[in-house]
């Protein structure tokens, strides 16, 4: 009987220890997980297609700190830029001409993996440098009064980023997030008279982190 009691006691202690480890493990996972939800301002550069800066975009990101400074994660963002082009005659080919005005629209939806490295150890301000790699879906359109011509190419996407998480109350998970980014995607578009071999963007994001 003593032996049985001893085995039970030992099992109970082991279970308690395991549950403590589990709880501790769960807490650690939660501490290491972090999320960003941002509004973004984006300006296409080095193009004459829909290059007007706009704030029609968002960014979503989830990461996990594999070391205290280094995080790995995934992201998805989307953005639309427009540009009005006054009525003009477009030479579509040596024999084709089209006279119209247009609303040009460039929609981009990159997603993939992200990594970042924290700089400094301030409890309130946590700056970082990061880079994103992935794929980008684009939809470049020319809207006329009754028709829309469009191209929806895919490409590879890379984006270095410099950002900062701001925690007004350091003990709380919730904070603010700001970031500056540049992005390049290999998407190619030939639409009417417009030809794009790659898409470049500059922008910034403002949002929350938790």
């Amino acid at each position: 009987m003593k032996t049985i009691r001893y085995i039970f006691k030992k099992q109970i202690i082991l279970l308690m220890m395991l549950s403590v480890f589990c709880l501790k493990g769960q807490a650690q996972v939660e501490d290491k997980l972090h999320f960003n939800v941002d509004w973004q301002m984006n300006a296409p550069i080095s193009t004459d297609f829909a290059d007007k800066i706009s704030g029609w975009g968002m960014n979503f990101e989830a990461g996990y700190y594999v070391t205290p400074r280094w995080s790995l994660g995934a992201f998805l963002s989307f953005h639309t830029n427009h540009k009005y082009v006054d009525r003009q005659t477009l030479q579509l080919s040596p024999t084709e001409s089209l006279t119209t005005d247009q609303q040009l629209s460039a929609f981009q939806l990159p997603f993939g993996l992200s990594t970042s490295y924290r700089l400094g150890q301030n409890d309130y301000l946590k700056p970082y440098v990061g880079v994103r790699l992935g794929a980008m879906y684009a939809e470049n359109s020319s809207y006329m009064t009754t028709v829309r011509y469009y191209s929806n190419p895919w490409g590879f996407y890379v984006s270095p980023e410099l950002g900062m998480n701001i925690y007004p109350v350091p003990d709380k998970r919730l904070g603010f997030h700001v970031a500056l980014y540049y992005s390049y995607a290999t998407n190619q578009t030939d639409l009417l008279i417009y030809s794009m071999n790659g898409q470049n963007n500059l922008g910034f994001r403002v949002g929350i982190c938790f």
Partner: protein
Amino acid sequence: MKKLFLFALAVTALFSSCEKDPDLNKLSSDYAVYTNYDNSIQFNKFSSYYLPDSILIAGSGMKAQYWKDENAQKIIHEVVTEMDDRGYTRVDDKDKADIGLQLSYAQSTTQIISPGYGYGYYGWWGAGFWGPFWNDWYYPYPVSYSYDTGTFVAEMVDLTAKPADESKKVDLPVIWHAYASGLMYNNSRIDMQLTLRAVGQAFEQSPYLNILYTDK
């Protein structure tokens, strides 16, 4: 891997609906005007043209219907003015004309696909209208387009391409075409004004339609 790909596609489809549409109210009410032509043709070799006194209404059924009222005459008059300004002379006998012009108005969406040959729409101008020696007609250049409701179409055919032996039929080439489309205002005065402006634009962006043109 397949599941991941499908998931990525589903996410892409979901978020692509987040695209912000541009403000289409900024767009001008003027019609978009498209022109194309056969660049192997020297349009200055022609001097006379035949233009019917009616406009075909496409999409009104299998049987062709023609528009002949005062508004139709205004459009025809505008085409005549543009052709005359470019040195061409209108003739009453199509057998004596170098080129023919046919005007059409798409009453409903009309799909035309022609990769050089063929013509897949009934209720349009028949090649036989231009003489018994024309079998069918074709674009010497690739075209593939759809005319939306309310589209005005002008086509020019080369009547000098008729066979030496008139008992043998040949195909009639369309050497120039133009179409104009935009929003209909259901106001005949405004729609007419926009159509007349579009006719003028079609000729303006086709400088090769001139008996004095010497760019070749």
